[in-house]
Every structure is written in C-alpha cells, then in structure tokens.
C-alpha cells in the first residue's frame, strides 16, 4: 500500500466511524481531492464532514480551536507546511495554551496535517521543513511518520486517542512510496519496532553484529537513508543501524538512548537547517545524561539559507545523498578499502 492510500483509508475510516471527526482545508473537495490527493473521494462520501475552505490559514487554525472546544475532533489539512506560519499566532498563543489557561476544563484535540520537505524544485516558500520551528512551541506534539511506519494507523490513534494539539507531518516525496511493511522491506534491511503507540522503527543490516554507524532521523529522510544503507553495504559492507521515531516532539528518549549506548559513532540526519535543529536538541539531552561521552557524534542537514527553486541549487542547500555519503565515508575512513 502507498503512503497516500494509507492516509486516505484511515481518514475514510475515521470519518465513517466517528461523527465528531471533521476534515477541512484548502481545495480538498472532489474532484480535485487535495493537492496531494490524500482526501480524494472523501468529500463525496462524507459531504457533511468534509469541506473546502477559503485561503486563510490563521482562520482555519482558529476554527479548529473552536470546533474542538465544542466537542468535535477536527482534522485540518494545510496544503504546504510552510503556510502553518500564517497561522502561528493561533497555534502559539491560543490553541496550545487554552487547556492550561482554563485549568484543564477544556481540551483542544486538534490534528493539523501539514506537508513538508523539498527536493522537488518547489522553491523557497513551498519546500521547507519547519519541524524545529514548530517544536519550539510548548505542548505542541509533532508526529512525523516515515515509510517504515503505518501512517494511517498513526493518524487514527492520534485523532481518536491523543488529546494533545498535534501537527502531523507528511513528507511530500513519501506520498507515492510503497510503505516498507512486511514483504516490501528491502532484502538487506531488517526492521524492529518499539512497543509504543507511536512506535520507533529500528532499521538494521547487522542485527547480529554491532553497527559501525548509527543514523538517527525521521520522516521522509528514510528515502535517502534506505538508499544509503544499501549503497554502503554493497560498496563497503558497512554495518548500519537506523532509528526513525514516529513522534519527534516530545522525542522518545528511551528508544534513542538504548541504541546510542551501544554505538560508538552516531550521525543525525535532518532536512531542516542544522543550526538550532532537531538533532541539536537530542544531542544536548543525551549529553546531559552522559550518554555520548567519548562517542563520535555528527549532524548533517540543510544549509542556513532559503531553499532555491533550481533543482541543482536546491540539491546543494538540502543535504543530498552524496553529501551524507561522503560525510559517512570521511567519519569512518571508508576510502581505505
């Protein structure tokens, strides 16, 4: 099943079985069915629960607060995650604070679906990965599935069982990908999961040996990581382990700490700028707990620049596969082969 189909099916199920679930956003009604076709067919099937809206992210996010206070479970689609910035005031100063300002008397179980990520030449305002910016908002939970997770299951759980305010990150290039579940997992990789409601995926090509490098990342970076694991295995027989949490804020400390403990060399991969990034936060936490003393720890991510429209330049600003690969080769001195 493809990433996009998994989400579409989950939304269908949520709307069918829960009359309080409402799905809305820009251009998501049929026949268009949303910019990335995640909501295709749903407005026809559930006309009372699914509707398209005018272009005003601030109003859309504000509406979700009202809806949730009134007892609904709104799912809001933000066509490009970059536009969440237009509704930051509602998110930062209202939605995430109400529960605390009113002493738990009201709850705002809102889920905002937002596409993120570049590598498509969509330019500086449609390609960003704003996870670190959003992660700085207190009490905002950020879920970011990779193709090694089941995004539909995560979405269902987040909407029905989790009463936090949530951003659900959908990486653009993941939509057409086949989910890496069961027989779709590449033959060189084995996958284990932590037993949480938001499971962390552990990828390995060396379950019986110790890894030479541990990669920590999330979301659509799995695409590059999967290719890297394969290339480094075929070229250097490199033993690699990967941690892909499905919730990135709050990040699953224990899931990460356990693996970090057993690895001497760690590389964090993110598509947002390295500076003031997601990796920095985790590394700081691990350092405070004395878990990375004496280990080699590195980060790779975007440059501190707007993302260019030209694909060639975009590939320079964002961390490309070849850049990450040459970094790993340098860290591990692989050219000696």
């Amino acid at each position, binding site marked *: 099943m493809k990433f996009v189909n998994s989400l579409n099916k989950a939304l269908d199920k949520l709307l069918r079985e829960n009359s309080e679930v409402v799905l809305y956003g820009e251009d998501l009604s049929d026949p268009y069915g949303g910019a990335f076709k995640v909501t295709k067919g749903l407005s026809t099937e559930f006309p009372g629960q699914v509707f398209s809206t005018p272009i005003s992210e601030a109003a859309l996010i504000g509406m979700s607060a009202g809806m949730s206070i009134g007892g609904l479970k709104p799912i809001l689609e933000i066509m490009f995650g970059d536009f969440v910035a237009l509704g930051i005031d509602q998110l930062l100063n209202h939605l995430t604070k109400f529960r605390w300002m009113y002493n738990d008397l009201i709850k705002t179980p809102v889920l905002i679906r937002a596409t993120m990520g570049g590598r498509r030449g969509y330019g500086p305002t449609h390609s960003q990965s704003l996870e670190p910016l959003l992660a700085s908002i207190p009490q905002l939970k950020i879920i970011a599935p990779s193709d090694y997770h089941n995004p539909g299951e995560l979405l269902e759980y987040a909407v029905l069982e989790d009463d936090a305010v949530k951003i659900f990150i959908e990486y653009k290039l993941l939509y057409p990908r086949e989910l890496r579940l069961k027989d779709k997992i590449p033959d*060189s990789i084995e996958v284990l999961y932590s037993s949480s409601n938001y499971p962390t995926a552990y990828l390995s090509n060396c379950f*019986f040996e*110790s890894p030479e490098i541990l990669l920590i990342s999330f979301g659509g970076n799995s695409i590059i990581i999967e290719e890297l694991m394969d290339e480094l295995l075929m070229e250097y*027989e490199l033993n690699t382990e990967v941690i892909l949490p499905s919730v990135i804020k709050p990040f699953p400390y224990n899931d990460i700490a356990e693996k970090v403990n057993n690895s*001497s060399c760690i590389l964090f991969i993110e598509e947002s700028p390295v500076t003031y990034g997601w990796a920095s936060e985790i590394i700081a936490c691990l350092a405070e707990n004395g878990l990375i003393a004496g280990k080699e720890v590195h980060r790779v991510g975007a440059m501190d620049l707007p993302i260019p429209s030209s694909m060639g330049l975009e590939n320079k600003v964002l961390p490309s596969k070849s850049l990450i690969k040459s970094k790993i080769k340098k860290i591990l001195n692989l050219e000696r082969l």
Partner: protein
Amino acid sequence: MEKFFWIPFEDVNDEEATITQLLYESGDYVEKNSIIYSYETTKTAVDVESGEIEGYIFYFIDEGQAAKIGANICVITSDKDYKIQTQEIQSLDSGKNQDYRLTAKAKLLIEEKKIDVKKLNLKGIIREKDINNFIKSKSTITKSDKEKIKYLDRGDTFIEFLLNDDNFRQLSSEEKIRKYRDNGHTIGENVTIMDGAVIIGNTITIEDNVQIGTNTYIEVPEIVIRKNVSIGSNCDIVASQINIGEFSRILNNVLVDIAGGRYFDSNFVCGRDCLIASDVFINACREVRLGDHVSLSHRSIVFTHSFWQSVLEGYSANFGPVKFEDNSQLGSGAQVLPNITVGEGSVIMSNSLVTSPVAKHVLVGGVPAKIIRKDIKKSLSIGQKLRIIQRVFDEFADYLHTDGYSIDKLGDLEIETTKDSVRRNILIVDSLKKLSIKKDIVIVFKKEKNINEKATEVFIVDDKSYLGNLSELGRMLLGFFRRRGILFYPGE
C-alpha cells in the same frame, strides 16, 4: 543522430504514467514538431512532440501500458534499421530478475578464488563472510585421513584392559607409567598419575612434568599433553582428540564430553598456558579450540550443539565449533553457544550468554551478551609497566611476611627476606649492568649478556621468561605474579 523520449516526473503522486496513444507505427518517418505519443498521470494528460528532430521512430512500449517515471518510450533516429536494445526497455519490473547481489568485497573474493556464484546457492545480498563460509564448508568435505571420525581401538588388549580392570587405577603412578610405556605410549619424565586416575587412548603422548589428579578419567583416541600441564582431580574428559598446550592448567571437576554425537572434529584443543577452572563444562561434539592464555572461569559452559527439538517442526538444531582466540576470557557462570568465535583479548562477563560472535578486545555481558566496552586493551609505556610490577612486588613482600618470612625493605625496588636464618634478596632493576655484586632473585625488563653472573634467578619481563633453577622463594614469586596476570616461563 538519435533522440530518446521518456516520461518526466510530473508530480509527487505518480511513479508511473499510462501511455494513452502512440501516433505512429515503429519504423515510420516523423517530421519535426509532430505529436508522437500521449500519456496520462493522475494529474495531467500530455501530448509529446518530436520538437527539433525528425527521423524514423521506434517505440519501446505499447499503447495502454504503464511506464515508470524515467522509462524510455521511444527513439527518433536517422537509422532506418534501428535495432532496439533490451536495456532501453525499462519495464516496471526491471532489475528484479537477478535474485542475488554481491557486495564489492564479495565480488573481489569471488574473482580471487574463482568461485561460480551460482554454486553458492544463495539469494539476496551476498557478503564477504558468505563467500568465506562457502570456502570453509567446501574445505571440510575433503576426506583426508585426518578428518575421519576417531574411535577407541576396541581390539587392542591394553585398551580393553584399561576400560574393564578397575585395579589398574589403584596402581602407583610409577607402575601405571611403566605399563603405558610398555604398551608403546610416550610418557615423559617427572609425570604423576594419581590414585584412581586413568588415561585411555589409541595413542598417548604425555610430556615432562605433567600431573594428572586423583580419580580423573580420560578416554580419548588421540591424546597429546604437553609439558608442565596439570590436570586436577575428578575430571572426566571424553573426546576424539585432545591436545593440551604446555603450562596449561585444568582444575578439579572439569567435564569434557561429546553429547550430541562423536564427529571427526570432536576435539578439545587448548593452547599454551590456558586455565580451565573448576567445574567447567565443555561440550566437544564439535571442535572447541582455545588459543594461548585463554581462561575459562569457574562453572562456565561451552556448548557445540543446541537442543533436540524437531527440525521438521521448524526448530533449529545447531551444531558448530567454538573458538577462543588468544588471551580471551570467559567469566564464571557464563555460557557460549555453537558457532561462536571469541575474538583475541575479549572478556565475557560472568553469567553472560554469548549467542553471537565476539569481536577482538571488547568487553561483552548480559543475556544475550552485548558489547559493554570496546578497546579494553591499552598500550602501556615502560614506566607504567614498571609501576604495575612494583605494585605487585609490594603485595608479594606483604604476602611473604604473612608466610613467616621477615622482610627488610631496601628501597622501593629491593627487599631482603630472612627465613630459617637464610637471607636472600629480591630486586627489580632496569639494567643488570647496574649491579656490582651478584644477587639472588632479579626482575629485569630485557634480556642481557652474561645474565648468570649477575643473579642466580632472573625473571625477564619482555621475554616472559625466567632463567636459573628456581628456589622455593623463586617459585613463590612465579606463582604470585602469575595469579596477577604476569607470566614467566622457563627460558633457554
């Protein structure tokens, strides 16, 4: 001149496009700026034009078929008899026909060893270690005499006698040794075979200064026990072949068996100066091989086969050798499973269960054992070594004091002992040249000329050797240092 046309990346939803129409037949002549085919994705329908090129068109795909993004659709060429190459057709399944892939290292090894990949009979990713396993498995199938299962020669009257007559075991050590020699076995000088002990084998070679403890039973077709080996009491050793390296010590109640079945490599091979502590259990239905200075601690277990559940019901019955490389150590109560090599200098913590191979110089622990620490071996400077020896030397002086010696300290590196009115001095020096008079016992770092003129007994750190006939005090020092991991062997 030729130009290929392919499906571009249209949008993030689509990995493929459907070819809705081909406007020509393969081999037709196409003018510039003509529409040559149409395709559709979930978002767009596109007519593709020939642009600034004209020539003969050849399609790689039929109308109505799906094509992957990037796949070639057609070529326009000036060659009227253009032959389509198979690699130009990229169907959706392309690249999946080969059911194995070789890593770069595996490829090199295959070329070097001239192995036919198909003979490996492997699917998926093939690594260097897979090729090595294959080479190893091939080499074990050759049938040399060495690799035949060894049984006791039941037709031999002496062996029958040893197996059945319990009175032999109560003979004195000298009488037993005489009988062994009379029956063609090689027994060295100063060997002791204690009460109740018996050694049964087709060929028995025991070198000088070997001790076999009381009630120890050894039943092995081929036995080699090198000099200065001691085997404790109540040991029970059954295998196809044993070879115990010099200075190795097997303590009491050690059990070596071949449960799981005798095989051509049901061997127990032990290098120089190993320690098998009391109550150790070694299953040797496949070879258990210890390098030099390996220690298996009290109650540790080595297994070369796994359980007896039915393989036809999907359980695994695992058989395989176990190897301990030089200087490795198995902690007390720890267990090692079949097919495992413990790397040089590695330590397995007590009560661990080792289920996968252990790298070199690591500390592993837990059930199942995981790496706790890497690079546990440090390189030491001469100064650091000197301080360590000095510390052990200090402890040794205290020990002597509690054993009835009176000790006079003549500085950090020299003591004088007195017992029964005999005065003897022991000292550590960096060079024997500094000694003006001959000393009794000297610990020195390097071997030097005319060493015998400077001291009666000399222990040389770099060589791990000692020279001279050891007095009682010298033997005490030898044992005390050995227990702290500082080893000396008789020198040339």
